């Protein structure tokens, strides 16, 4: 594929990040924002109606969605849904914690904060919000952000409601979960001065780092979503939605740029050829395919259309993994749910239809330069599909259409819907405007959180540890415990492995509720270890025990057998109870089971084995 010179292409790119805030409650009610309810208790069914009247016409995107005539099913979760999410109750006042965090973020991004914040209703009629709109308020404007490749402007910072999560798509229904609805989000939009794919990644990464620096944002899958806006000269504005994986950001940007470049080249080529818009005039050709055994045409009506001079175009690569044929097939799938079509640019042998296409060419008196397309199904379906194909082929002469595209896991993207016009926005009349005083802003500026990057650097120099280690400690949010442990004389690598991979392993593998551990408890365990009251090997066991039994104290547990001395006592007692075992070939193996019965959860097997063999050796010696 071609090499791209972004500056010459008139490349413009901006990023929009949506980050969930780590508040206890939702944005406009007292429901939990934890997303830990997994079992819905019931569901409700709703319709949304387009609201015409005031504006005379509903905009293109709105019409597109309503054409689908959908029923929306909303799943209700006991701790995370109330009448507010069900659109059965007016909102309560805006969550003050969410406002606070969004003001902190806004200030960190050097934004201007309005004196009075107004909550707006932004029309959304895909059902992802029960009310038919999303509530959103601007908390910052005209800020900036610096990365290695340059400065980028921050247009807007807004605090807003998250949308429902799609659980299932059915033919005329969408099933949504109400637990994610109205979790506080901060939306950050950059201006369109991002210069190239790598710069896009830098900006996204830097924004993510700033957000995490607040310690007030949610972590984990689905808690941050980024949309990328891209256009080039002569191309069109494209919004790529749902880029989850930061490392793919440059790929999305590059592929979209390639796609637009290719579409512009196709347009120019067609213009040069004096390609005329095609009329959708499908011919009934079932008789030609009567003897075919291909599942594509068998038992169905088949219609075909000839596109003069269009041979070869459908196999043009738009991106490394996407041909124009793929692209049009995708439009058809989204717009009419059809499986697609077969065309003469394809390898027809894989369908066993080469002969049939030959006859078809003769039937239509089509030349080598013409493209022959075939659609099967019932008559109505074929008519609609061919209409849509022709519409998209004719669009190629006009140029790149504005679209919203879905980010795919291979770094490519696919069509979702036409780019909507600016969403209709009007005041949320159930919310009172909020005044932000200069005093509030001064206080926020005074106590801004230190950036993670600078925290990592400090840790590196202060404790002479590697960047990776410092990164892990800082990102686990355990910096203070780390500093405490190291200052007590413990090895930095030991402390960091306990605090990062150790705790993660307990959480993931053994389902230990480690998040319930307090910083004080963790520090105390480290202290016991540094004073040799707790063997290194038992530190994780102790943390796991404490997390599972919040009522137990470290002191009691340590004297109850966690210290090496106590462990040894227990081992000796068990050996003396099982003297006979010492006569066997491998007494460690025989006794280990007995010992672990008592010591499980107090010390690691490795440590116990070590003590056990030492004790057995000792007894044997004394004999």
């Amino acid at each position, binding site marked *: 594929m071609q090499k791209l010179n972004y500056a010459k292409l008139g490349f413009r790119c901006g990023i929009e990040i949506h980050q969930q805030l780590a508040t206890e409650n939702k944005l406009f009610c007292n429901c939990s924002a934890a997303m830990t309810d997994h079992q819905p208790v019931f569901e*409700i*069914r*709703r*319709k*949304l*109606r*387009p*609201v*015409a*009247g*005031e*504006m*005379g*016409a509903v905009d293109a995107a709105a019409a597109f969605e309503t054409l689908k005539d959908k029923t929306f099913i909303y799943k209700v979760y006991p701790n995370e849904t109330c*009448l507010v999410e*069900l*659109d*059965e*109750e*007016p909102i309560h006042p805006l969550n003050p914690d969410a406002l606070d965090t969004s003001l902190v973020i806004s200030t960190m991004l050097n934004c*201007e904060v*309005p*004196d*009075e*914040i*107004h909550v*707006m*209703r*932004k*029309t959304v*009629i895909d059902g992802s919000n*029960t*009310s*038919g*709109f999303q509530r*959103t*308020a*601007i908390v910052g*404007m*005209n800020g900036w952000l610096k990365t290695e490749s340059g400065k980028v402007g921050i*247009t*807007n910072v*807004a605090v807003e409601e998250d949308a429902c999560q799609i659980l299932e798509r059915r033919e005329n229904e969408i099933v949504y979960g109400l637990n994610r609805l109205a979790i506080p989000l901060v939306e950050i939009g950059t201006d369109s001065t991002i210069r190239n794919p790598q710069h896009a990644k830098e900006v996204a990464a830097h924004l993510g780092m700033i957000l995490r620096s607040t310690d007030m944002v949610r972590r984990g899958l689905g808690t941050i979503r980024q949309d990328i806006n891209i256009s080039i000269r002569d191309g069109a504005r494209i919004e790529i939605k749902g880029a989850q994986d930061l490392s793919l950001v440059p790929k999305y940007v590059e592929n979209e740029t390639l796609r637009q470049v290719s579409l512009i080249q196709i347009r120019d080529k067609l213009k040069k050829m004096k390609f005329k818009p095609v009329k959708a005039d499908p011919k009934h050709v079932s008789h030609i395919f009567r003897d075919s055994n291909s599942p594509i045409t068998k038992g169905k009506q088949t219609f075909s259309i000839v596109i003069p001079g269009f041979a070869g175009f459908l196999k043009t690569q738009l991106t490394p993994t996407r041909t124009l044929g793929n692209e049009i097939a995708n439009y058809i799938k989204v717009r009419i749910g059809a499986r697609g079509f077969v065309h003469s640019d394809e390898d027809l042998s894989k369908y066993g239809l080469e002969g049939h296409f030959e006859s078809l060419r003769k039937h239509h008196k089509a030349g080598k330069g013409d493209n022959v397309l075939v659609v099967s199904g019932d008559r109505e379906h074929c008519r609609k599909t061919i209409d849509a194909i022709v519409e998209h082929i004719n669009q190629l002469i006009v140029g790149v259409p504005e679209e919203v595209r879905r980010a795919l896991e291979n770094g490519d993207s696919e069509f979702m819907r036409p780019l909507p*016009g*600016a*969403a*209709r*926005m*009007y*005041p949320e*009349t159930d919310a*009172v*405007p909020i*005044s932000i005083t200069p005093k509030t802003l001064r206080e926020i500026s005074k106590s801004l959180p230190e950036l993670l990057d600078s925290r990592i650097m400090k840790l590196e120099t202060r404790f002479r540890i590697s960047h990776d280690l410092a990164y892990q400690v800082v990102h686990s949010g355990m910096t203070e415990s780390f500093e405490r442990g190291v200052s007590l004389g413990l090895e930095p690598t030991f402390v960091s492995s306990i605090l990062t991979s150790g705790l993660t392993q307990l959480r993931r593998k053994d389902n230990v509720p480690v998040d319930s551990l307090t910083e004080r408890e963790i520090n105390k365990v480290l202290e016991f270890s540094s004073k040799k009251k707790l063997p290194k090997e038992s530190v994780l066991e102790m943390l796991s025990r404490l997390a599972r039994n919040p009522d137990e104290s470290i002191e009691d547990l340590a004297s109850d057998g966690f210290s090496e001395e106590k462990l040894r006592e227990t081992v000796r007692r068990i050996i003396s109870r099982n003297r006979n075992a010492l006569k066997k070939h491998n007494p460690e193996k025989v006794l280990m089971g007995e010992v672990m019965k008592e010591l499980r959860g107090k010390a690691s097997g490795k440590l116990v084995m070590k003590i056990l063999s030492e004790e057995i050796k000792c007894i044997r010696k004394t004999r």
Partner: protein
Amino acid sequence: MPYSRKVETLLNRKDVRVGDRILLRSGPRSYEGLLMPKTGAGDPDSIVIKLDSGYNIGLKLDAKLSLSKSPSKEPDSVEEEEEFELGRISEKLIKLKFDPKKPPVSLVAAGGTIASRVDYMTGGVNMQMDPREFLHNVPELAGIVNLKNVSNPFNMASEDMNHVHWQEIARDVARRLNSGDRGVIVTHGTDFLHYTAAALSFFLRNLTKPVILVGAQRSTDRGSSDGGMNLICASHVAKGEIAEVGICMHGRPDDDYCLFTRGTHVRKMDTQRRDAFRPINEYPLAQVWPDGRIKIKNHNHKKRNDRQKVRLDTKFEPKVAILKAYPGSDPSIIDYLVSKRYRGFVIEAGGLGHVPTNGKGSWIPTISKHVKKGIPFITTPQTIYGRINPNVYSNLRVLYKETGAIPGGDMLTEVAYVKLGWVLGHTRNPEKVREMMLTDYAGEITGRSLAGTFLY
């Protein structure tokens, strides 16, 4: 609350009006947008503008702030927004065409949320909508009925209404029914909708066609408004066979079906939910789906007879009060009201019909005194569900047998209030009043208490 005088003065001096494009500067900050009216709440010193992004922000008027008219024109995309934002009714309304072969039905638009739009002057939801305009949000109506006439006697929140408005609505309804319409739909605010439903039930005598009251619990600016489906279901009822006055609103929080419930046995039971209107002490008359299916749930109703004429009987005595008996309540309030020429009382009584009976706080002497002077007292259950029974306890016998209060049976307080006003509009003869109050005129007194109606 409007802008402060300080802001108003500045706006006047700069000759700037709501909707004008202005430039606000404050130190390094500079914003351009449309001047918005001050919403109901917030700092009166904050000037609100709508940015080109669609967002509103407020900037406080202080020494640093400067305001000027903006020389630049807004982007085209903003213009359409602006029209909407400022509440100007669009000229581009689609004309709804009705089919003369469909059953003729009329609509009386009497305000409420169902006919509301966002109001930027108060920051609230205001009833200003042209009735033709809200019909454009429900084009499905054209496929169900031939909407012949839309009258708009007033646009009003239901809390602002009184019997005069009920009489006006009743007159409009009767006129339409007697000129050949198959049914009439009344759109109305919901808070006191069940009072109007009761009033129409008594005012429209010899009713042989459906009269359906409809409201919305969610404003019509949102895609999720319940008003559209309520109207669609109501129009199915309007051409149907049930010849009663009733309320037709959502039966559940789902957009699944509506309940059509008799106007004398329905009550708003929740401040906010779509399914707030519940039948009380009776099954709903029918379940109605937006696709036109109607399932009869209560066979005790009058059937359509298009040859009959409705008779209007709207005489009403407004000097009727509702009082609630509660522990420690003082009956002397009755003396005060009588001195203010109140002519009848509905007492919301406890349990089977009790008011404080023995000891110093007893209501009995006061009620007794006024009953003897010919003022009627009727009791209703403050339990909402259930029926007054004058015979079970001795205290009840004192109130109803010795004192002469009228037991209201299973009538709702609101219904008893409307009915007493209507009865007193016809007679003040105590015996006649008692007889009429105990007579069932509009299905308001049921003979049987059915187990399944509780919390229906």
